[in-house]
């Protein structure tokens, strides 16, 4: 299963380098440069993981996070911020982000691990749901 990742950041450099990195790792990656166009993309196809900056013009990352939590509760969200304040961190926690990663992104391993955790979490649930559905069908059509 190739997971779909949405990267939201108003800085094109970060957006593009992250997109390249995760495309190479085999994910399907889309990008948006603000919250509004991210919401539009989210309504058009399902994303497993959204990585979003907090401070963006227009709709900021926290608003986006809030919308995702109510509208697409199964989507995992990883927040990034360059403005390291306790308030930002607590907002992420309060609205149910998976984690919050501080910029500058010197070591991308932290994001890698966060994405992996999100995917593992979803796969764990898919397995659970299949078990819920009962035996028999599981082996039939593994995707």
């Amino acid at each position, binding site marked *: 299963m*190739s997971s779909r990742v949405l990267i939201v950041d108003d800085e094109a450099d970060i957006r593009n380098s992250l997109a390249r990195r995760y495309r190479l790792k085999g994910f399907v990656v889309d990008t948006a440069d603000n919250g509004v166009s991210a919401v539009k993309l989210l*309504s058009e196809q*399902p994303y497993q993981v959204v990585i979003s900056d907090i401070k963006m013009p227009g709709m900021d990352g926290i608003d986006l996070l809030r919308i995702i939590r109510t*509208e697409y*509760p*199964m989507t995992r969200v990883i927040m990034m911020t360059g403005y390291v304040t306790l308030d930002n961190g607590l907002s992420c926690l309060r609205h149910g982000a998976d984690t919050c990663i501080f910029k500058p992104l010197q070591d991308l391993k932290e994001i890698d691990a966060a994405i992996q955790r999100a995917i593992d979490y979803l796969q764990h649930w*898919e397995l659970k749901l299949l078990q819920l559905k009962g035996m028999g069908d599981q082996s039939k*059509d*593994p995707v």
Partner: protein
Amino acid sequence: MTSSDVNQDLLRGFIDESSDGLTSVDGLLVKLENNPQDLNLVNSVFRPIHSLKGNAAYFGMMKIKTMAHTLENLLDMVRKGQRTVNRHLIDTLLPGIDSLRSMLAHVRNGEPEVSDPEAYQAIISNVESLLQNAPTEDIAVSQAIMEDQPKGTPETNVHHDKTMRIPEQSLDDFLRCVGELLGVEEMLRHLTRQLNSGIDLSIISANFRDAVTQFEGISKELRTKIMEVRKVEAKVLLQKAPRLVRDVATQAGKKIQVTCHGEEVHIDKSYIDLLDAPLTHMVRNAADHGIESPAQRINNGKAEVGQILVAMSENSDNLQLIVQDDGAGLNYEGLQKKAVTLGIISPNTQLSKKDVVDLLFMSGVSTASQVTDVSGRGVGMDVVKRAIIDAGGQIDVESSPNAGTKFTVTLPRNASTQIFDGYIVRSFANDLFVLPISFVVEAFRMTSETISQVPGKGSMISRRDRVFPMYLLDKILGSSDVLTHIDMAESMGILLNIKGHDVVLAVQDIVGIQKVVNKQVEGHAFNHELFEGAAISGTGQVMMIVNMENLLRQV
């Protein structure tokens, strides 16, 4: 992840569950229209839509999510008392539910969610127009759009690999049976060892009998259990009725109340599919042609609101689906005319009940003097009737002028019931018997010259240069008292081939060939060796079904 990336089993399971959830929504909405103050009803409708909204995006069904979301918003306003329940509201919600259902069906078949984006958008805008605070004028979805949306359950609902929810207890029971089967396997293995070790055969034989008895028990239990698992509540079927009636009543300006009975009766899964089309037809027919307009009803001294009863019931043998209305009754004159025009009866003969049913379930024939677009199309209804008869069932109709019409579909209770072509003969004692047709080679009238008595062998009959042993059916069955005055030459001979043996059975008469339903018979006077069961003839007479192999053993 597009929907094709989701685990397909999971997706199918989700769609089936969601579709099941939506089926009840139609009925609930119609109920809500009649009880606008009932908040519990609003909540019951809200719940399945809400969870569909929450889950659809996970499976990549974005259009379904949007539709569910829009509907949810409207329902939420109703819940909060910001919108009152009225006909317009229900008229707006129902197409949305239909659209959800058909989109789910599309995805189930591997098609895109939306086949007609314009119709989809029209439904969304229609709901959204009610969401705005300003009171809206009636914006009805145009008829052309409605046509594209399958009403009620979509046709595409027939899936060959439809999933089914099974109670955990049943699976545990199956597992237990499997465990016991392993026990039998062990017994048989032990027997094989005993056979090789030269132990007394009588001991082995006793052990073998034990194994067979055990096995019989398990096999019977498994059979019963699997039939139980296949059963579902009749509610799945009956809950369609209120919506169907509402659609007709709205269009025709009638007032009709629907009552459903027996929703808790458990019926075989295959019957749900079998009865779906006939129920739709009968209910529409009752609403469209049975119930009169309010003015007409008052004129005829009846309550303004017409009544339709849809009931499922069962007894030890049968399952019955009844659709009854208190309308005008069948237009016998019109039917008679149609029957004559179609060449079913000649102008002077009276219509029989069977003819009426045949006519009502014939393609393109309806009781309506004017054909309305709801039930005026009797497409494929003869096929529907055929399916019921092939399943061993029948359709009856009773009707009286100004009092209404009652359709009854009767089906054998067990879908596994054996149905076969029976060769029906009359014994000299005037009883009817069924011979399974696969044993019958030919039948012929016997003459006295061909019959001869062979000492020690009994009667023999020669036919086409061959000689066959001949037996009298009555004699085998033990009613020998009639023997004295039977003229063999007057009787019919039936040449049977039973497991390679050719014998001739003498009977008084041959009645014909008919599909018969094998019904189990109990009672001490019943000879289980000789008979497999009983069946009912077209005239309602009981006919015993002869077990041919055991019959041969008796002679």
